[in-house]
């Protein structure tokens, strides 16, 4: 009894674990996994690199302090009227400061003031881990300690495949959604056309019934003399030489049938198009371009870059080239704004990569078809 109980417990636990693992490979789970992985990376890298950065920053600060002190002493002691001497002294000190600064920069200093802002804040580290696993690699922030470098390598080894997996997954889902939306839009378009046709048909029918009513009235009215003549007249008008009694109805039927046929044709057309629905390449490219442009506009407003510069930044980022010469949040002195910008940048990047994956997914088939077609053209 107890044994069975225990076994059932074990199986339950196993099942739970299985379900958890399965969940991790679902869409939502993958998203969560990637974000969680990036967060983990952020925490770890911040913990590893933060102190080192602080040390470097403090070094630079102290060096600057020294330079300032020397300059002040020169001003204080040396007769300030002795321009040449003063300048020589201060310049020598600035040179020295430059040398120290160079060393610090080589070791990862990037001009952020100690205590005011830092590279390895949480958001900065998050962005760093994101650039690692997306292989963008801006390089404006990079690990400088040995431990950090090793960790980066390991992090990339695990993270890059994970990111690829995530991207294919999300790209697939988004492509499906996109396709669905596109199909819906086409359906809507045809529905509108159908509606128009229907309206036209209704109009015709109405007109027809009016005619028929009129004729009937006339027939009743002029039943004495010229009913026959009138009837024939009407039916000549309507191109109908059938039995006079059912003639009007026939006409009506015919017209409605024609309308129905038209509708049917349109519907068939719609169905055929929906069956072989394929998002055109131009639309895909346009979507991507729109995303890039939106990013460009946003960044140009925020960072006060020129439009081309921000477009360049977006493009270089989303193609995962990632030069890092332009980077949002660098110009701003205020730390909070910079952090916000980093967050927005990382969201933009993540979503952009997913969108890119989607576009690849959508474009793949089309491009393959086209290349095959070209190859066939060449062969024949």
């Amino acid at each position, binding site marked *: 009894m107890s044994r069975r109980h225990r076994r059932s417990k074990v199986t339950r636990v*196993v099942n739970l674990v*299985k379900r958890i*693992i*399965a969940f*991790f*490979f679902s869409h939502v789970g*993958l998203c969560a996994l990637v974000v969680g992985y990036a967060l983990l990376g952020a925490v770890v890298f911040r913990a590893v690199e933060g102190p080192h950065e602080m040390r470097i920053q403090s070094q*630079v600060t102290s060096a600057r302090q020294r330079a*300032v*002190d020397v300059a*002040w002493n020169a*001003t*204080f002691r040396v007769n*300030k009227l002795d321009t040449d001497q*003063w*300048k020589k002294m201060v*310049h020598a000190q*600035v040179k020295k*400061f*430059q040398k120290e600064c*160079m060393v610090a*920069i*080589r070791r990862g200093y*990037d*001009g952020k*003031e100690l205590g005011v802002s830092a590279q390895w804040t949480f958001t900065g580290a998050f962005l760093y881990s994101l*650039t690692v696993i997306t*292989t*963008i*690699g*801006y*390089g*404006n922030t*990079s690990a*400088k300690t*040995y431990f950090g*470098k*090793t960790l*980066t390598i390991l992090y*990339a080894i*695990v993270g890059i*495949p*994970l990111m*690829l*997996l995530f991207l*294919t*997954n999300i790209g*697939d889902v988004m492509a499906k959604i996109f396709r669905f939306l596109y199909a819906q839009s086409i359906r809507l378009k045809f529905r509108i056309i159908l509606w128009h046709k229907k309206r036209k048909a209704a109009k015709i029918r109405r007109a027809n019934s009016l005619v028929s009513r009129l004729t009937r009235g006339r027939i009743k009215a002029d039943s004495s003399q010229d009913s026959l003549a009138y009837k024939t007249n009407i039916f000549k008008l309507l191109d109908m030489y059938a039995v006079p009694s059912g003639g009007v109805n026939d006409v009506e039927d015919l017209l409605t049938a024609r309308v129905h046929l038209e509708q049917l044709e349109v519907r068939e057309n719609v169905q055929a198009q929906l069956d072989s629905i394929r998002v055109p390449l131009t639309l895909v490219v346009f979507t991507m371009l729109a995303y890039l442009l939106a990013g460009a506009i946003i960044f140009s407003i925020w960072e006060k870059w020129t439009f*081309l510069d921000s477009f*360049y930044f977006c*493009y*270089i980022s989303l*193609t*995962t*080239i*990632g*030069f*890092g*010469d332009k980077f949002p949040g660098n110009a701003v002195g205020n730390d909070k704004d910079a952090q916000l910008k980093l967050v927005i940048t990382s969201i933009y990047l993540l979503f952009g990569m997913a969108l890119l994956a989607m576009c690849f997914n959508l474009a793949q088939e089309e491009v393959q078809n086209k290349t095959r077609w070209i190859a066939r053209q*060449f062969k024949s």
Partner: protein
Amino acid sequence: MRDEVRSCCLRTTNGIRRFTAFVISHVGLCFLVAIYAVLGALMFQAIEYPNELTFQGHIKNDTWVVVDGLYAFIRENVVIEEAEVKRRAHELLKDFEQELVKAVNFEGFDENDDVRTKYQWTFSGALLYSITVFTTIGYGHICPKTVLGRLMTIFYAMVGIPLMLLCLANIAESLASVFTYLYFKVCCAYCRWQKNRRRIRRAALSFRYHPNAAMNIRRAQSSRSAQRNNTVRRNASMNRMRNSRFADTKSVRSFGRYENSRFDRMDTMSLPGKRKVSQISRSPNGTMRTYSRRPHLQKSNTTLNMDHMETMLGDERKESRRRGFSQRYTVSQSPAREYKYARGTLHDDGLIDVRTYPSFHEVVHAHETRPSRGRGGRRGDQHGNGHGPGAGVPNVVISRPRQRFDEKERKASSDAEKEDTSAQLSFSDEDDNFERKGRLTPSKMDKLERERERERMEKLDKFDKLERALELRDMQPSTSAHQGLASAAERGDRLPPRKQPSLDSSISRRLRGELDIRSYRSAGSERSDELSLHSLKRGNYGRPSSEKMPVTVGIFIVFAFITGGAILFSVWENWNIFDGAYYCFITLSTIGFGDIVPGQALDEGSQEKLVVCALYLLFGMALIAMCFKLMQDDVVQKARWLGRKIGILVREEEDSSSESDLDDDIVLEEDEEDDPLSEEKTDPDKRTTSSGSSKRDEERYGQSRSRRLR
């Protein structure tokens, strides 16, 4: 005149076509990428260099700017306050710092620049830049500053990235084949040698027994082969994998590998008969054949096994197709070889020879005594399995089970009958066979398939035997007891395997049709396959085209490459080894931080270093792509296996999907073949599922990930 114009047009179009074909080929693509890089370098240099002249070396001035600024500040203020001055100094120095950071990170500034300005946008620098753009590495240590340069970068990347991807895929393809070849030529030479030795010893041992001493040998053999079964199973799975790998190279058929792909595709077990048949019809084509014997060989092996299984089950459907295939093959082979083969197995494998021997006699006998009754045999063939002399299961020769003795004899006689009829008859016979079997009920399929799985496991075992048989034959040239066929054997032997396509003509077929003993056909095909395989092994083909590298080797290669790069750069650039390794990893994974870039530390000779760096990049990326290619199937398979073990992947079969490619199909199949436990469960689905869905993809990627984590 008009004709001339037309011919001119034709020539130009032909020339264009050839040119395009060349461009798409390996060399052409590499060439194209190189030219693209050089063009980009020239363009960017032209755009950026003049701009760089204006600002490079501004740090020297900036120090003076700081000094002058401070002096001016002090000068202006009447009252000099310490705090004010210091604040001002701080500000100025901070600005200077920012400038310095920018200069160091993106303008290539270093200490030597104070003495002598160095320019980034030299030709080699621009070359490295263009390479980092289209490989998406993007170091960022050199980056365009002008608007035009940035615009051009965007367009350059737009064209360059797809081009590079194409080129990488191409290079990876050829590199993969080279590496597999090297691996199996060099690394596995020792293993092969050992295996061969063992085989020879075994063959010598088994030769001692005379075929007439049937029972005890059989017993011994069966036990031994059972043992071997277990050991060989691993290899079998590997083989299958290897085959299926080539199945996905079919997309690159135009690059001259389609022999492999075709045959390997054939080798996947549960292909629908139609496809197989079409391939068969293509197969008697000499040049292709020499290249691709081995997979086929395995195929025929399985055929044998399966044939037997079918006879027992009284059910044969797919096998019959396969048999038809092997038979067709055999028809093109010389009968003498078949005969010899039979003899070889005879001595080699007690199991086999018990069956074979008497039937063989029968055959000879029948050949002499019953000159013309082929029609009857054929008719019998149409009646299904165990009935009548023509029972369409003649390939049972090499198979284990009981109950076959009489069958064998019957068959042999039928074969003998068939011998006398023309080759045409035998062909039609096969066709009949095929049709008949195609009509069989699917109710027995499950059972059959299970059996087949088991047999598949044994196929390598069979292969083993065959090889032994071959060695045996090599040691003991035909001193056969069956003189009746010896002459014919010699006649057949004289025909080199290359000439077989010509022999496939109806005349030669008829010529050899007399000796075309059906029961030995498949065996014969194996035999000749084995022969050609042997010759190929000495040549440069054979193994590398069909083997597959294990994952560890791929990882090891990448690791070695990174280490080599690390050592190289650490020597050149005076980095330490770790920095070199870090640089190599960051570069080859296309992350490309650009915090460490070669060609900056040293003033002279850095140009060449940049070029070497570029080459290292290109080759390394190709290598990585290659390793991905090699490892893909393996990793996917293992991941799936793991997934099934854990129990996540149960639902993988029932998904529907949009994209259907053969690769996935095959992956799926091979997967299931490797997993006998899940076989029963998945079998019915297997036939219906023909595509991999995204879900499964994810899952297997996920598995691969999780596997890595473990």
